[in-house]
């Protein structure tokens, strides 16, 4: 069975500080990896995805993530956060040939303080 674990449920950080949101996954088959963001009272929006190739993936709003196969991790980073980055962040895996099924982690609430 596949699973996704986001290691921090809440991450408070000051504006302009760097941030890392951690994600580990477990799967016996190849997966695709995604980070989605959910702003308050809105649907989810794709930040970035890893399919293959370079393990460092750049996304929207200055976010990037690094795929580490040996550690089965896909941590999300941003060198300098803004107040507007305050949101819930979800890591997800997609399974090959599973009809688009995504398995989500529990979410990490990023709270950026002035």
């Amino acid at each position, binding site marked *: 069975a596949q699973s996704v674990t986001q290691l921090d449920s809440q991450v408070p950080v000051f504006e302009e500080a760097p941030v890392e949101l951690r994600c580990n996954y477990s799967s016996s088959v190849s*997966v*695709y990896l995604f980070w*989605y963001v*959910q702003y308050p*009272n*809105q*649907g*989810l*929006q*794709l930040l970035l*995805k890893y*399919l293959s190739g370079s393990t460092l993936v750049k996304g929207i709003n200055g976010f990037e993530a690094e795929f580490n196969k040996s550690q089965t991790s896909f941590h999300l980073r941003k060198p300098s956060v803004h107040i507007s980055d305050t949101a*819930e962040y*979800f890591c997800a895996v*997609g*399974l*090959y*040939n*599973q*009809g*688009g*099924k*995504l*398995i*989500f982690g*529990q*979410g990490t609430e990023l709270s950026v303080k002035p």
Partner: protein
Amino acid sequence: DTAVSQTPKYLVTQMGNDKSIKCEQNLGHDTMYWYKQDSKKFLKIMFSYNNKELIINETVPNRFSPKSPDKAHLNLHINSLELGDSAVYFCASSQAGGNYNEQFFGPGTRLTVL
């Protein structure tokens, strides 16, 4: 222009009632999904349709019946509502059922069962 829209945005109803949530996408996508987000913000896929054909049905009670009249619409009908059905329901769509395609989410429908 709204890409994935859902109606209603809020739905408050009594136990035992039957209700429907409508979803429409104007992106020309082939695949549509329903997700349930519980009070702890955990997201889980419920159904997936590709060109009006059911391809994912995740151990969802048969009180939940998705209906896809055409590939731009995927409605969710719920019979005999229970307290545990209270959640936010998200509709999403993607270009195809492949796992590497971005899923576009609607704004969600907050269902409250009293």
